[in-house]
């Protein structure tokens, strides 16, 4: 209650702590709500409960050890963190990556995007009160986790992408299982649409709720599906293609009004597109003329990049995830800043929550799909 003394409240206002322990804040986020009856008068998000001092830890580890830290940033789509970190360090040290490793990176990143969007779909449905889609989403996600368990050993935190390539090649039988999953997953997407997207109650809860205009989204620095739902068509995979995204064809869903439903449906369409990309990667990986090695030779375990700075960013499932790496020529990075998309997605809450109802707070928070590991670093 430090920033809210009861005297400041007018007669009929009530101060509610929405979090940090609350079923629908997706982690430890506290929103100080000043409420008049059901309508929110003022909202002040308060973060920092999961602050582990990640950027200080980076400075105490070597480049290969720091990769493990990046898993813990956005722990739901850990593959994107590894990829962004490795791209930044490779750009800093000027390391080339073999083509097969590029395809493996894009394949695992897109599968991880599907898994991350499935978590979003499940938790957003539970926030709206529908419990069943959560179980369906996690049934499909379980299959992706099995694929990752087969490939890189971890189910949630993989540390699979390494500086200069990837750590392991596809085991026997993995490609068939992956194709089988994608073939099974497509009709399930249609099931989700009939179950939730077109449901009139769900539409009444999300359509026209939490409207974010294009100018507002750009000014607040939103990124990913949150930005594309408000109009501006900006996707790092299209704007600055990294890895082999320029060789793959896929569409990026864009909406106009920026309501909760638009953000939700952009992510659902993205899942379909990610499945397409994964299929194209599988075809490319199966091609015989692709060279077999997955790791550039000569990248020392104890990497010592020359002094300098580099910035690389990736279209993570939650937005534009960037790593700003500064090296002073020693074994461990001199400074490593993480540009977390969720950190800016949370900041906009203080503006769009005023005037909506408590049930809308849950809807808007769910539709922005934030992960506190990335907000607090």
């Amino acid at each position, binding site marked *: 209650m430090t920033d809210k003394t009861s005297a400041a409240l007018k007669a009929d206002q009530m101060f509610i702590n929405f979090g940090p322990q609350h079923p629908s804040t997706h982690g430890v986020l506290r929103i100080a709500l000043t409420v008049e009856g059901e309508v929110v008068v003022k909202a002040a998000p308060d973060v920092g409960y999961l602050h582990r001092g990640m950027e200080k830890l980076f400075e105490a580890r070597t480049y290969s050890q720091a990769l493990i830290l990046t898993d813990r940033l956005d722990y739901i789509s850990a593959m994107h963190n590894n990829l962004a970190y490795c791209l930044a360090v490779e750009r800093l040290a000027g390391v080339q990556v073999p083509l097969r490793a590029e395809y493996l990176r894009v394949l695992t990143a897109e599968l991880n995007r599907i898994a991350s969007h499935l978590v979003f779909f499940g938790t957003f449905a539970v926030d709206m009160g529908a419990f069943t889609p959560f179980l369906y989403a996690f049934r499909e996600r379980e299959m992706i986790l099995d694929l990752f368990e087969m490939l890189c050993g971890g189910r949630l935190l993989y540390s699979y992408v390494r500086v200069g390539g990837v750590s392991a090649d596809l085991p026997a039988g993995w490609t068939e299982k992956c194709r089988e999953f994608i073939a099974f997953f497509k009709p399930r997407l249609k099931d989700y649409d009939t179950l939730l997207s077109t449901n009139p109650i769900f539409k009444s809860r999300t359509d026209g709720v939490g409207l974010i205009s294009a100018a*507002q989204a750009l000014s607040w620095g939103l990124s990913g599906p949150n930005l594309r739902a408000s109009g501006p068509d900006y996707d790092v995979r299209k704007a600055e293609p990294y890895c082999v995204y320029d060789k793959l064809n896929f569409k990026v869903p864009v909406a106009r009004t920026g309501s909760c439903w638009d953000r939700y449906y952009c992510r659902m369409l993205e899942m379909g597109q990610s499945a397409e990309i994964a299929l194209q990667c599988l075809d490319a990986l199966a091609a015989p003329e692709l060279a077999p090695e997955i790791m550039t030779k000569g990248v020392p375990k104890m990497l010592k990049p020359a002094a300098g*700075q580099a910035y690389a960013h990736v279209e993570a499932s939650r937005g534009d995830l960037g790593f700003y790496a500064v090296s002073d020529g020693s074994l461990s990075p001199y400074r490593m800043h993480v540009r977390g998309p969720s950190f800016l997605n949370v*900041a906009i809450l203080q503006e769009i929550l005023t005037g909506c109802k408590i049930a809308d707070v849950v809807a808007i928070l769910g539709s922005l799909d934030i992960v506190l590991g990335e907000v607090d670093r």
Partner: protein
Amino acid sequence: MPAEEIFLNLQASFAGLVKSEAQVKGYPTWTVPAQALRPVCDRLRTKFSFDYLDMVTAVDWPASAGAVTQVAASAPAAAPTAAGRDVFELVYLISALSSGIRVCLRCEIPRKEPSIHSLYGIYMAADWQEREVYDLFGINFEGHPNLKRVLTPETQQGHPLRKDYVHVPDSYD
């Protein structure tokens, strides 16, 4: 309007603007004098529609650290980093999403009482990112409506990401 013409156009009106020798690999980097930062950003946003502030961050270059790694000596003519100059280096990444140009602005402020003008009015994204830089580095942003700690608890003494930060054991240890 590629970055080059924008740079020349801006250099005409802002004397201190110079192409930085510490280039951020991947993006054109310009060094901006601290007091000219806000007008440059204002000009970029209004005239060249740079409507998206990607990132605001700071790097601490105390006098001691840089010298230890003798970076300046071995480096080629352009020193790759601002090592050993006892400054805070503020890095802004601003981009025009429509035309896809992304530019990095660097400015250096003395370590004694670090303060710079906030970009709060131009980009709302700066609001929380500047609070984070204040929280972790102690750089004061003038004109920022509620410059308070955002990540560390209120009872935190000192600014953790400074190189000379010594942890004062508080109630959490």
